[in-house]
């Protein structure tokens, strides 16, 4: 049994075992990840996608902070029932400015990828502060603190936009400079609603390719 004698050596040599595990486990990842990552997020071109505005970005970071993606997906699968329920199916290029991606893995609440424009700002305001006031059966938590917190409490919006610019998001210097003024007087609630209203708008009116 030659393979057994080969393994006889492997299981007696610490370095060889470490190398063996590393090499064997790395193959699958390299085959699957490298081609996809090498394509980059703009393979199909950003199209008419604009990066998030300062207010939307602040809202998105609040969405991440509250872990909204625990219960809400942002991924409409190309299935008839999903397209009927939520709108045109999600396409990769629509997420080119999503760091991290927020597709989620569980729909305790409905998908939000194309929720933008579906409800009024006032509806969202009521819903986020007291979900059961507009959806009686809702089991969503209320988020009363969003209304009392001013947007960008830490004063980091410029740093965040500069970081994203370094990662390739097309923010001009003036976009960054104007950001604090854009958030002036806004609450976290305003920011989150701005983000929700921006969701999926780029693909909303378009027929599926």
């Amino acid at each position, binding site marked *: 049994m030659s393979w057994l004698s080969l*393994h006889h050596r492997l*299981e*007696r040599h*610490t370095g060889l*075992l*470490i190398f063996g*595990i*590393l090499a064997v486990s*790395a*193959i*699958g*990842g390299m*085959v*699957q*990840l490298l081609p*996809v*990552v090498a*394509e980059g*997020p703009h393979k199909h071109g950003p199209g008419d996608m604009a990066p998030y505005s300062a207010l939307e970005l602040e809202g998105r970071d609040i969405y*991440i902070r*509250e*872990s*909204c993606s*625990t*219960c809400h997906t942002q991924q409409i*699968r190309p*299935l*008839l*029932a*999903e397209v*009927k329920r939520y709108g045109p199916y*999600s396409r*990769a290029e*629509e*997420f*080119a*400015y*999503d*760091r*991290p*991606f927020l*597709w989620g*893995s*569980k*729909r305790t*609440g409905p998908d939000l990828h194309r929720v933008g424009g579906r409800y009024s700002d006032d509806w969202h305001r009521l819903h986020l502060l007291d*979900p*059961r006031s507009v*959806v009686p*059966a*809702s089991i969503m*938590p*209320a*988020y009363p603190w969003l209304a009392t917190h001013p947007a960008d409490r*830490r004063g*980091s919006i410029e*740093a*965040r936009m500069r*970081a994203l610019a*370094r990662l390739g998001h097309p923010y001009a210097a003036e976009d960054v400079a104007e950001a604090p003024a854009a958030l002036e007087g806004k609450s976290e609630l305003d920011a989150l609603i701005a983000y929700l209203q921006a969701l999926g708008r780029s693909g909303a009116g378009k027929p599926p390719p």
Partner: protein
Amino acid sequence: MDNYEDRVVTAFMYCSVLWALLGMLAGVYVAAELVWPTIDWGLPALSFGRLRTAHTTLVLFGFGVSALIATAFYSVQRTSHVRLFAPWLAWAIFYAWQAAIVLGAVSILAGWNAGKEYAELEWPFDLAITAAWVGFAVVFFGTIAKRKIDAIYISNWFYGALIIVVAMLHIVNSLALPVTVGKSYSLFAGAQDAVVQWWYGHNAVGFLLTGGFLGMLYYFLPKQAEQPIWSYRLSIVAFWAFVYTYIWAGPHHLHYHAVPEWLQSLGMVMSLVLLAPSWATMVNGIMTVSGAAKKLKTDPALKFIVLALAFYGLATFEGPMLAIKSVNVFSHFTEWTIGHVHSGALGWNALITFGTYYFLVPRMAGVPLYSVRLANIHFWLALAGTMLYVLAMWGAGVSQGVLWLSLDELGEVRFSFNDVMAAMKPYYVLRLFAGVLFLVGAVLMAWNLARTFAGRSAIVVMPPATAVAGATA
């Protein structure tokens, strides 16, 4: 006198039990919030999204990893016949890891969140985890390198794979550009980020919750059954097939998502292939324990481990089935996923750890288990809790999957999202009840183990040598 460095093992065990209780308590609380959504009392830290993230972080990295390090340090000394390499480093890892869990849980409740599932801790914690993990690797492989036994025992291959592969996954998936101390942005965007994340997420399950705990199985099952591993060759084949195949299965989390079709199909096929090494190990375990059927009736520790093996078999069968695209189309995004995760996490990971602790603690304390009866009650609570949990989530998940996709004769969706959501309530109540059962069992265990340890100090004060010898025999 002390041949092995076991105090650090005990310390990790203590903490893992503490994290199990806290993590499960958080789990029970979020389950209750799905039934009574206002019991977060308007407090951000109790809000579902944050508390659920704390739940997964505490049970995965607090309970799971602490238990794995404890058992790895215990078994690597015994299978190598040497004391732990660099015990000071082992203690440094202990304090670093526990501090990272405490501060990490607090940071999540305070709203620091990297936004990637099961990798939510922000970049300062990612760096601390990396450093501690390198220390774990040095102590573990250092001990193996100075071993006095010729061959490296099978359990150490699995623990070794845990250390190496989780390091690789964690480092790549955590690549991010820090902005402030509590905020960073992923180096990957959108679909690329999704593919990297589920390569990480699926294989954290693979190499932490499966591979690491298989290391535990390969050491403690033969020990408790007092039988050698049934087939050595099967162990070799199953190990390498497992290490090679698992990594490919990640894309089944992204079926029908905006990622390349070839990736989804490849992920599905490799998920099906994965059934072979998974069940090869299960067969090896069952055949090993089959020689000890008599002991199974009397030894609560062995009962836990065998039940864990059964749930391992169930979860590793269900996984490939859920990875088939035509099944996944119904199960995806539903409670079925939650049921699948918990049949693994409660039925396999928690039960094998409990069984191992019922075996280890009396040995380390040098006295018999405080109460075999309590351990047996725990066994039935754990079994009932896991089964009810899984059944509730199957019911909920299949309902969601079918009702969401159901179309009427005009081709319109038949049920509104709200109606389906409202129909989930009975299942959520049942799941909450199941979680409470499981948690109560874990509390009984903590009490039982603490009393067993307390029995040791009584003997140290007044050592009746014959009694101790009789107890450990």
